[in-house]
């Protein structure tokens, strides 16, 4: 009995963390935060920095909101969430300027616009305001990593095709003709559509496989009976 209880509990902790990365990926499944997803994924470095910055804001604001969830009256919760989120965005803004001015200029207004990223307010309202600090941190980390991975998926493809390099390093030889459109906004839409197509195909295939496996099992089961 004792061995059964941790195995019953551990999936919930792992689920809280993993759902943001795969099952409820903010970009590929929930299709949230499209503005930075399309705007700053013109290079892998920009995409990665944006992902990390958003993860920091997600974790910071989720922690504080979860800590203060019993103290915040329902009527003013959205106002307080926005103040808390804006605080962490301002901190990230300073941090990126301190790390690299070049990176800061490349990301432009999109750092400040993390404030209105619906993933963050969404997680605050749907999860952090109702769950313990530990659970909220796990959820925020999962969602943040899921968002970063999604941005990197777009960023690497766009940079490779659009400039022939990855993280600023040349990958293809001089013979490669860069597909300039890929680093422009339409390229963002095309690559996002490609990834969404791949994801839904994958999902449909696994559901069909599961269904056929279930039917097959039922058949073999009925034969045995």
């Amino acid at each position, binding site marked *: 009995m004792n061995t059964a209880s941790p195995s019953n509990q551990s999936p919930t902790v792992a689920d809280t963390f993993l759902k943001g990365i795969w099952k409820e990926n903010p970009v590929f499944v929930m299709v949230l935060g499209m503005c930075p997803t399309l705007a700053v994924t013109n290079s892998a470095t920009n995409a990665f920095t944006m992902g990390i910055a958003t993860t920091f804001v997600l974790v910071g604001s989720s922690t504080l909101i979860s800590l203060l969830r019993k103290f915040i009256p*329902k009527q*003013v919760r959205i106002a307080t969430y926005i103040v808390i989120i804006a*605080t962490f965005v301002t901190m990230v803004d300073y*941090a990126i300027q301190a790390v690299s001015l070049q990176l800061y200029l490349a990301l432009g207004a999109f750092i400040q616009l993390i404030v209105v990223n619906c993933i963050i307010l969404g997680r605050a309202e749907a999860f952090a305001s109702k769950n313990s600090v530990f659970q909220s941190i796990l959820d925020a980390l999962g969602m943040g990593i899921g968002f970063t991975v999604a941005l990197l998926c777009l960023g690497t493809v766009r940079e490779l095709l659009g400039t022939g390099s990855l993280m600023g390093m040349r990958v293809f030889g001089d013979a490669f003709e860069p597909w300039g459109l890929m680093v422009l906004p339409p390229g963002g839409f095309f690559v996002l559509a490609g990834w969404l197509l791949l994801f839904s195909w994958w999902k449909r295939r696994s559901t069909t496989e599961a269904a056929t496996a279930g039917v097959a099992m039922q058949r073999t089961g009925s034969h045995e009976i």
Partner: protein
Amino acid sequence: MSETNNNALQPKSASTWQMLVALGGISLISGVLIVLAYETTLPRILMNRQRAIEEAVFRVLPGSTSRATYAIEGNAVRLLQDATHTGPKIYAGYDDTGALMGIAIEAAGQGYQDVIRVLYGYAPATECSTGFTVIESKETPGLGDKIGLDPRFLANFQGLELRLDESQRSLKNAIVAVKQNSKSNPWEIDGISGATVSSKAVARIVNDSAQEILPIIRQHLRQIETQQ
């Protein structure tokens, strides 16, 4: 009826005092966090900005190893000791022997998307530009941002003529951008097809700045040469 419904929906209505305390308390925490972040990062941010300008100055003034910053005040120039001055500035570059190699001039103007800030080098001895770099721009990635990346476009500024006329009050020939591959005079900038607006904006920014600043520099060249 509606009042009773509202009450049923919100059984535990917080008092005004509770809301004020929550909002006030959270604003206080936010304030402290922001001040902490600002104070910790400020020295690094200032250092980064300083380094970015320094690198840009040495990039547009090849051969220089030290520099002096001057503020432009009306028709006069004044040697600055610290970098906190906010007005228009020029940066003089000197080689190891202390000889003036050139002067880097900061200029800004409207581009296609937003303001473009550039730095270009001016060699008083040859009355030509020595280099050009974009400090800040939000031009379209892949098209307009070529003004800071395209080596063919940047090569325009190696020896671009910035000669003053006899009166020493304006340029002899205004700087203009021409169609790609049709540059025929040393004061023309070979444009970028696909980034016409951005390349024309650069020509306009450099021209406006040179028309205004170069006469002042020529007037005070002796002062800059002796680092006073």
